[in-house]
């Protein structure tokens, strides 16, 4: 499949700040997480890809269109959810979505139909007819998402779509993002500084740091890299006993907070199970033998954060 975004040596120099520094990256179709601390160059990259600001150096193509010469074609085919507030308070979500669809060139009748469809998909019901000034943050984010999708784009840029949402609303938004990317067939580039939520929805992750590419790979690769398992046991002095037992079973285990991590990348098999015994089985049997309740056993998902943490060290 063709890449949705290809950049080559993309540089943006604001004089005082070097926002992007020779960024070369390829983004495949699907859901892509764009990760980076504040000021890493995420928003600048999106604006350059929208063809709004010219790069100081380098080239980029979005959906096959050159950003330098085909800005209008790009903007016709992409949707954009900005990080900041962007909704006029005295207009209803319904009227606003219709208007924004027309601003992307849809005829009025089609715009009405699309607006109704998209507002239903994002989950705005009767409130779509009320002025958006009275909306909760969650409803506002849904309205912002609706306007980004209303013209049926091939690619949407979502800049911090979960910002300021409570956990329930955040789960709902992440579910929507997954549906849009996987069921609607629209590619998504989503930024967030909360790494945990990106790995839940994205197929690939691009990590930016100081305007440079730190890493770009499939989400699975990030997660498989550690090969560690996270487990939690309940019982009297459960952790210490479990840690002890696992070490004796030949596994490399360590404490982390109220949980244990087990390195699953080295084959177990010191115990009687033999060389082929699965680490999962060893852990289950160990907990069973000790009479402890095994309440959690999952892949350790700290790796993306680790990549990130590495960069905050001395540079």
């Amino acid at each position, binding site marked *: 499949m063709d890449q949705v975004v290809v950049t080559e040596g993309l540089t943006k120099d604001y004089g005082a700040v070097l926002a992007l520094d020779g960024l070369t990256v390829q983004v495949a179709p699907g859901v892509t997480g764009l990760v980076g601390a504040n000021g890493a160059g995420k928003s600048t990259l999106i604006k350059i890809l929208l063809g709004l600001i010219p790069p100081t150096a380098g080239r980029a193509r979005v959906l096959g269109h050159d950003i330098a010469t085909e800005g209008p074609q790009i903007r016709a085919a992409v949707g954009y959810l900005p990080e*900041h507030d962007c909704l006029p308070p*005295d207009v209803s979500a319904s009227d606003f979505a219709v208007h924004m669809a027309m*601003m992307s060139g849809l*005829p009025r009748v*089609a715009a009405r139909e699309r607006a109704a469809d998209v507002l239903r998909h994002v989950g705005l019901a009767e409130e779509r007819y009320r002025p958006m000034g009275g909306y909760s943050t969650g409803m506002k984010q849904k309205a912002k998402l609706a*306007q980004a999708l209303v013209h049926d784009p091939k690619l949407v840029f979502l800049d911090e779509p979960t910002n300021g949402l409570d956990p329930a609303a955040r789960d709902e938004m992440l579910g929507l993002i997954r549906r849009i990317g996987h069921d609607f*067939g629209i590619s998504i580039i989503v930024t967030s500084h909360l790494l945990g939520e990106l790995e839940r929805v994205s197929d690939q992750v691009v990590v930016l740091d100081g305007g440079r590419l730190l890493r770009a790979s499939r989400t699975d690769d990030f997660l498989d890299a550690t090969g560690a398992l996270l487990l939690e046991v309940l019982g009297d002095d459960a952790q210490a006993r479990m840690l002890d037992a696992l070490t004796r079973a030949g596994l490399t285990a360590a404490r982390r907070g109220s949980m244990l991590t087990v390195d699953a990348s080295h084959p177990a098999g010191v115990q009687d199970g033999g060389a082929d015994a699965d680490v999962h089985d060893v852990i289950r049997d160990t907990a069973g033998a000790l009479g402890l309740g095994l309440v959690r056993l999952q892949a350790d998902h700290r790796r993306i954060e680790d990549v990130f943490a590495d960069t905050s060290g001395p540079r």
Partner: protein
Amino acid sequence: MSQPGGIPANPNSASVIHDIGYRPYAGPRHGEGAIARALVTTGFRNAFGLGRSGRSKILPFVLLAFNLAPALAIAGAIMLANLKEMPIGYARYAATTQVLLGIFVAAQAPVLFSRDQRHGTLALYLARPLPAPAYAIARWLALLGATLVFLILPIVILYAVALLGEFDLTDETRKAAVAVGLALLLTAAITGIAGLIASVSTRRGFGVMATIAFLLLGDGIVAAIQGISSQEGNERIGEIAGLFSPYSLYRGLVTAWADGSSMTPPNSTAMEWLYAAVLLAIALACVAGLVWRYRKLATK
């Protein structure tokens, strides 16, 4: 087991009856021209509070009603008293209601030029196909259209009454046409000024006050200078002072080309055309300023 309508009763199913899946759009997409036209139409409606909250409709329609009241009163008087001559000229009408016009332009320019910046909506427009300069011009045309309603409607009412009252058709048509031309010049200039002020002041209150101060106070100062110079017998100063405010330019032209009331009208053909040229130049400079401003906002 199934519910009426054949929908399987599955409480765990995420799909509900109205979930018909995502339908991609394969229909036509218009180009920039049609998008700009849609933006002008929406802007025109928004200037009168249409498509916005109920509260925002009050001011524009109250002003419009005040603005039309004298025209309707005159129309009534002509019909009842069976007058054979228009008590007030078409072009002069706008000069007498200039305060209402100034308030309307000052209050509604921020609706079109500040609102999108204050609420961040501009970013959404800029992320769509219409380029920033076209956006700026479309917004200005919307304000121009809305303001022209203020100036053209009274002319239409008075002209209709003139036709009904069997006035001299050729004469009335010529006068009405001159009035429409002058109205266009005045509207282009004051909407340009108000738009430019509103586009650089995201605070609505500031934009409104600055525009009113610029249009009405500026005109007051010019009128005072013109009054003094007229009394002192040095009308040349008043004639030149008239170049410095859109309203005094308009009054000067109305006096020269229709039946105005300027104390020191332009008294040579060259000066008359200079007055018209300055009005046009103000409009063009302001539109150029708007284009520059939005181009800068787009790349911020």
